[in-house]
């Protein structure tokens, strides 16, 4: 028994040492280096005009992307679970596609479709700018977060089946009523989980957005682009640390929220 105990302890030590080295020490170090000059410096750094407008742009993109992906995500989940149509497997594959793509590739494909020399380049010459403007950044963010809601809602829909909905329909409820009173309450935690994942990813998206945005401060610079610009262009290292730490704190909050939502949906 003593050898197996020793083996267990050494495996535990090895696993924890790996996590310490790969994750814990790095994230502690950035927190330390951010707050080393004091909280005031951190606060000043994340409330500069550029930082505030980056925050505003990020929130604006979230406000557009999240509702759209929530609505279409639920619609696609309904189509996949309840619909019977040819090519369903393909739809499944397409929904998963954004996860298998490099974010930079997503950005490039948007440039090739919506850019001045792309398929829809006519829009650009008409003065409707998509690439290097807000619409492109929104499209990029929708693309990379497309699967989250569908993939969280789909298994719940499958699990609950359609008996209750059919009963409601038999009793004379309209499709809208049935959805509001029966379906939506059943999927609400799955939907919430998917929405939180969407928010987290949308907030942190960098690769795809960086291809379709020039990242001008006060115009097309999101929080992640601000972090990049501060470090690489402005050589404002402490400013980059501060903005990165702000995003990290949000990520930790998201993680905590996900744990809570996950517990909710498991107990229901």
């Amino acid at each position: 028994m003593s050898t197996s105990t020793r083996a267990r302890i050494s495996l535990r030590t090895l696993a924890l040492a790996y996590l310490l080295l790969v994750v814990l020490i790095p994230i502690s170090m950035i927190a330390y280096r951010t707050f080393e000059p004091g909280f005031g410096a951190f606060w000043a750094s994340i409330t500069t005009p550029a930082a505030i407008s980056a925050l505003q742009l990020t929130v604006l993109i979230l406000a557009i992307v999240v509702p759209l992906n929530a609505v279409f995500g639920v619609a696609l989940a309904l189509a996949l679970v309840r619909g019977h149509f040819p090519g369903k497997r393909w739809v499944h594959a397409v929904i998963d596609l954004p996860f298998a793509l490099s974010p930079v590739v997503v950005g490039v494909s948007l440039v090739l479709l919506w850019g001045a020399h792309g398929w829809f380049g006519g829009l650009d010459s008409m003065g409707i700018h998509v690439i290097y403007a807000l619409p492109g950044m929104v499209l990029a963010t929708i693309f990379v977060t497309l699967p989250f809601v569908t993939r969280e809602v789909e298994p719940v829909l499958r699990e609950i089946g359609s008996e209750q909905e059919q009963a409601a329909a038999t009793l004379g409820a309209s499709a809208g009523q049935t959805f509001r009173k029966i379906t939506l309450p059943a999927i609400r935690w799955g939907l919430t989980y998917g929405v939180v994942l969407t928010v987290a990813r949308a907030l942190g998206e960098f690769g795809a957005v960086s291809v379709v945005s020039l990242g001008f401060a006060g115009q097309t610079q999101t929080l992640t682009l601000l972090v990049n610009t501060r470090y690489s262009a402005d050589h404002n290292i402490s400013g980059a640390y501060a903005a990165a730490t702000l995003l990290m704190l949000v990520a930790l909050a998201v993680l905590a929220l996900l744990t809570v939502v996950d517990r909710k949906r498991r107990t229901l």
Partner: protein
Amino acid sequence: MAATATSPAGAGTEPASDLRDTWSPEVPGSRTAAVGGNGSRGRGVGLGGLGMGLASLWLSLIVLLPLAALFFSSLGGGPAAFWAAITNRAALGALQVTLLVSVVVTLVNAVFGVLIAWVLVRDDFVGKAVVNALIDLPFALPTIVTSIVLLSLYGPASPIHLQLNATRPALVIALLFVTLPFVVRAVQPVLLELDREVEEAAASLGASSPTAFRRIILPTLAPAVLSGAGLAFTRAIGEYGSVVLFGGGIRHKTEVASQYIQKQIEADSPRDAAAVSVALLVIAFVVLATLRFVAARTGDSEQ
């Protein structure tokens, strides 16, 4: 997702969230089984024809059309131009660096992912729930933040006097960070379900722990490890944010494919960017398909 389906009540170590950035590491076949589960024609709330049309229009506009534009542009100059775009020295160098680093990262993940999953499922210690939650942090953290986090430790003015930025080890470190959850989260549910009696029987018959692990546990875990490793690999070859600042992007040394693609867009040669993008996509799909095939084979031979 897969994790939801396999969560024994009361287990304190179930994968808490699936903030996975890519395909869920479900064991091949489980999704198709689920699809067959609700075969009744009875409808609940469905989408009418209009809803279905809108949903497919949405999917086409957001995903399919951009990708179609990507493929057509990559071949816009003819096959020879496509081939030249992916085989010129710089592009090939970036692809080689990407593949080399990604293979290393995938192998490390396969080993340490299983180890961590094992410890989280079979071991018990104070703070295990926190460690379990920590696994998902790399998924929640914006990738550009990962670059900065690693620079604060290994960058210029490194507090531990270990400056690694703009080296290949830096690429490996960054990618190990972002791919940490894949194998762990793929293996954890399988380990939770693994029948302990079989192991105990093996032990009582005199099999030593390593032998039991190799002969009994490892074959059972293999499909999950392969699928998790496949996801880690796909993520690694496409990764951009975490390596863009920390990796330095030095041509032939630390410039990865996604960085090369980004530079082509900046240099206004979108066709070259498209060609290397397509190459990256093809590599990802070939690797995923191969791993799924192998996983399905090993899964079959188990039964």
